[in-house]
């Protein structure tokens, strides 16, 4: 990412205290959100469509935050940009694969991992 792009990103997210802005994307913060959603909603609504939606939504938010945070880190740490982008890509692939697998839910429809 060029310096101009970094400046634009900084402008978009605010320039007054950029560190605190990035802090909003801390995966741990969103993990807490995920935990809260899971704890508050899921036990009461196990097996319902609401619980499924809540879980999917919170996982989606979490992964979005995670990937965003990694992107910001890649933008801010020029000398580590390639490794961070590689990690981001890896997590995205994992997330997409996992989502597809979970969405299918039927073991026989997938061959990976190989079922009994």
């Amino acid at each position, binding site marked *: 990412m060029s310096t101009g792009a970094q400046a634009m990103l900084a402008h978009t997210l605010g320039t007054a205290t950029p560190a605190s802005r990035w802090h909003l994307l*801390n*995966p*741990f913060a*969103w*993990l807490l959100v*995920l*935990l809260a959603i*899971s704890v508050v909603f*899921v036990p009461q609504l196990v097996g319902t469509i609401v619980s*499924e939606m809540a*879980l999917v939504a919170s*996982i989606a938010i*979490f*992964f979005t935050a*995670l990937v965003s*945070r*990694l992107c*910001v*880190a890649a933008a801010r*740490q020029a000398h*580590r940009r*390639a*490794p*961070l982008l*590689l*990690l981001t890509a*890896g*997590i995205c692939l*994992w997330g997409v694969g*996992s989502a597809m*697998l*979970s969405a*299918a*839910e*039927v*073991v*026989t429809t997938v*061959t*990976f*991992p*190989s*079922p*009994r």
Partner: protein
Amino acid sequence: MVAFLLTDVPRRTVPTLVVGLEAAVICGATACLAALIGLGPVSLVFDGQGVQLLLALLYPAIDLTLALIVLAQLLVQQRDRSRRTAALLAGFVGLAVADCSFLLTLPSDRYVSSVALNLLYATSFAVVAYAAVVRPAEVGAIVDQRLRARNLVLAAGVAVTALAMGPAGPIGWCVTATALVTLLAAGGRLALALHEAQGAAEAFRLSRTDELTGLPNRRAVLADLDRQLADDRRLALMLLDLDGFKDINDSLGHTVGDRVLVLVAQRLQVRLRPGLAVARLGGDEFALVALTDDPIEAMELGRAVTDVLAEPVEIRGLAVSVSASVGVALGIRGDTSTDLLRRADVAMYQAKSTRVGCALYDAAQDRVTHQRLRRTEDLRRGIREGELVIWYQPQVDAATQAVLAVEALIRWQHPVEGLLTPAAFLPEARRHGLMPALSISVIRKVVDDARRWVGEGFDFRVALNCAPPEILGSHVIPFLFEAVTAAELPKDTLLIEVTEDSFIAEPERARERLLELRDRHVQTAIDDYGTGFSSLAYLRDLPVSELKLDRSFVATLLRDHSSRVIVETTTRMAHSLGLRLVAEGVEDAPTAAALIAMNVDVLQGYHIAPPMPFTSVGPWVRQWSAALTRDPASLPQVGDASSAH
């Protein structure tokens, strides 16, 4: 992910074989452990084999591989020991646990979303992401940091356990192979450790042996003394220093000098009584340790040592006489090797200075030594803080009485003892290697003073003395040239007085140095002429301007016929060679008159003027010159030749 791990570390040099093997042992053992408690049980829930099974275990296997990569990077110092690295490890292990749990709880027909499992996945990814976004600390230089032996033994134990358990199941062969590789790496590390141990033992032996003589060296003897003193053993230390060894080295060369040391070492080992430990401390110093605290017995041993060395050693058909001074010190309860060695050194110094051959440590002499050491430290400080002052003694033309030169004479303005003459501190300065610093300090002051006199319109020369090592050394004379150039002194303002000793050790180098001085328009004089070797070849070959007759001839001129003849002939010879002859130590008018009658060129001594500080020189020269012009009779009588006869 692998690409992330491999690219997110600094590029470092390839780890050493030792570090690589240690990393292999630890990682192999970790892999065995992970396979035993993680992948093994998981693999049992599947019926498939080969690629099908591999695919089933791919996710947890990848997670474990990632964790092993981080561990390996940590071990080969590509990653630092930080929370960041720990987080990476924890994240990948967390993913592996989650994947294994997922596979173990897999029902027959459906994937089930488990909240706990989802949280574990999320937490693991969050931890990995945390580790990724934290800026890595600067990784320092690679240090030769070895793992503790117990960690390696533990790792090898894990591998042996894995083999012993002979894990069943479809991945059993993987565990066996990994354990074998781990044990091979451990074996390689063990072989390297043995090799290193052999090298260390040899290095240890060499570090305690004197290379030339094969005797134990200073380190060995000090360690041995410390051990024996700690055991309250009664012992005496004899410190032996060869007399005149430097002359052997200088005159016959270092090869012969080394041969002498070897022969001395052999003689000490063979000819002295058994049980006497002999060591070479360095240079021409040897130490002997005897198990006795009887001063008489120790002194007898010391004398036996001097007797053994009294016989000449024969080298290349040449009989070389070697004598030694021996200092004896007895061990006292609570002593350290350093204490004992210091006392033996004091005794040895006493033996050398009194030429008695062998001396027992005397506490009274130790106090003198303390004073001497304190004086040396004072002098070191004095040089640093500018306490050395230069006084000047005028030299006048014997015929015209005009002031031709002043000789710089060093004094030490001691803060407690007052003004000290050179005899009080120069020997210590020579002994403790302070002469270069002292000479440079003198040159700096003399050149400054000469510059100021030139500025005031005086045109006399300034003579200063230079010791032989400084003439031949690589610091003092180059500094003199720099100082003269910086001060822009007129040509031939400075004159260096050197003694004949300067030409003995390295005559060719001395000649080159004097030629260099002449080329830089610094005159040279042979000081104390007639007391050294007085080789006439020097006068023929060396580019000197002046001979300075030793004061012993001048002082006895009037009452000793031989001195008179020497002065007369030396003067004639000097004039024939185109050299000035300076007579120093002119204490009275009759001597001055006699010297003038012999056509000596320059007079110096208390009869003309005593040494005086810089501030007095200018007024004295003006006063002398004015008197010379107005009323020569008011000057010290130097022309009354009749009184000399």
